């Protein structure tokens, strides 16, 4: 972390970057938040640890409109999102100075709590080059947690630790992939239609339409969104009509089909714990099977599958026929 701060100060001082986009300590030990830093002294609050799951690439849309370059820290998975935004002309490469940061997997506070831990006041050992065991101080005494046991679901299916785009790299990464990304999708596919319907009705019924999944998604970058309400304040969070209420999840996931990099942010931020990645990954799995292997954000020059076609593509009837 000190290395990142030192480098950020250098780049601010020599005029390469006009500002820094990183993470700032939050009010709890496990909730750092994305932040812009304009001055060297502001960087005292900069943090990069296991809780910095937030993908900063979407904030580069805003930063691309500002004067001068923004130094942005991107984890390996975040670089896919940045590439996808580049491809969609939403960010300006010239306005970004990208430092690819190493990653040993990011933490899910819920998985720490699930180990029977509550009343957390401090956590140490979450640094990127930290130990394998987290020390958790709580109002009920001290506890320890194995770092690997508290990883976000997405880190278990990590696309790899290579930065797809960056100007320089700092920090080491560790391999965290130990599961098949489509395992959960297959488990749902194996159920009967009735069971699938019941499963989704139960999961989606939990949704409070906070819009967090949309707001965080780097693929959801439309200037005007179909889900924006014309109302102000709390009313804008409510469903515009019953159509939206019922179809939100199908529409949201369809809008990002072919563009979703599977960065995992939607599932991370959902306050209701809805497995939104199931929708995204089902699309990715189908696209791979029907139209050929495709990874959004891998190559900013590649044509995305929904803006492309082949004369010999299967007919939509294949869904019914394949049984």
């Amino acid at each position, binding site marked *: 972390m000190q290395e990142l701060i030192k480098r950020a100060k250098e780049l601010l001082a020599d005029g390469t970057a006009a500002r820094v986009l990183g993470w700032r300590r939050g009010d709890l030990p496990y909730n750092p938040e994305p932040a812009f830093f304009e001055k060297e002294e502001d960087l005292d609050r900069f943090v990069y640890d296991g809780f910095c799951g937030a993908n900063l690439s979407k904030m580069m849309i805003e930063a691309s409109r500002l004067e001068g370059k923004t130094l942005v820290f991107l984890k390996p998975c975040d670089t896919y999102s940045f590439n996808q935004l580049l491809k969609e002309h939403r960010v300006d490469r010239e306005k970004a100075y990208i430092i690819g940061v190493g990653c040993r997997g990011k933490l899910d506070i819920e998985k720490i709590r699930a180990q029977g831990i509550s009343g957390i006041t401090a956590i140490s050992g979450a640094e990127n080059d930290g130990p394998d065991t987290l020390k958790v101080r709580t109002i009920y005494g001290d506890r320890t947690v194995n770092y690997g046991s508290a990883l976000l679901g997405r880190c278990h299916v990590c696309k790899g630790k290579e930065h797809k785009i960056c100007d320089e790299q700092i920090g080491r990464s560790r391999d965290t992939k130990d599961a098949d990304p489509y395992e959960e999708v297959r488990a749902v596919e194996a159920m009967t239609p009735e069971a699938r319907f019941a499963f989704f009705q139960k999961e989606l019924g939990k949704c409070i339409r906070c819009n967090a999944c949309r707001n965080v998604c780097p693929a959801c970058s439309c200037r005007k969104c179909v889900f924006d309400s014309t109302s102000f304040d709390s009313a804008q969070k409510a469903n515009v009509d019953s159509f939206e*209420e019922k179809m939100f999840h*199908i529409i949201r996931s369809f809008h990002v089909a072919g563009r979703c990099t599977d960065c995992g942010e939607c599932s991370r931020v959902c306050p209701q714990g809805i497995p939104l990645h199931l929708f995204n990954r089902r699309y990715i799995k189908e696209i791979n099977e029907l139209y050929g292997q495709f990874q959004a954000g891998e190559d900013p020059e590649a044509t995305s599958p929904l803006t492309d076609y082949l004369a010999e593509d299967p007919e*939509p009837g294949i869904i019914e026929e394949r049984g």
Partner: protein
Amino acid sequence: MQVEDKKEFRPKIVAFCCNWCSYAGADLAGSSRLSYPADVKIIRVPCSCRVNPMFILRAFERGADGVILCGCHPGDCHYSTGNFYTRRRMTLLFSMLDFIGIEKGRVRVEWVSAAEGAKFSATMNEFAEKIRSLGENVRLGDIRCRS
């Protein structure tokens, strides 16, 4: 006898037809006196690819029991390639509907040219029969909340 009739399920079917082929095909079916169920409501669109997947979801939300999308045969689209995009888009939409547990067969894509009045009529009769056998669409109108 009248009471019996009332019980019979009459599906509501929405058919999106592209102006250049399928709508003309429907016209030909009509002028050739080929019948198709009165339950099929045709919505004319400039091209099959004008149909946003949301139109299909909206039709279901408004009470449709089945939705069919008809366009020119691949390669014959009036706008050259529109229906090629339709094909991928609809395949993925249908796949998602299947994934969340909606009965297969409530949605369909058929290519019908302006000369295929008979195919139009046969397709609609067959689709209406399929929807009749599936019964009323309950699930898609109600993917959230009520159970």
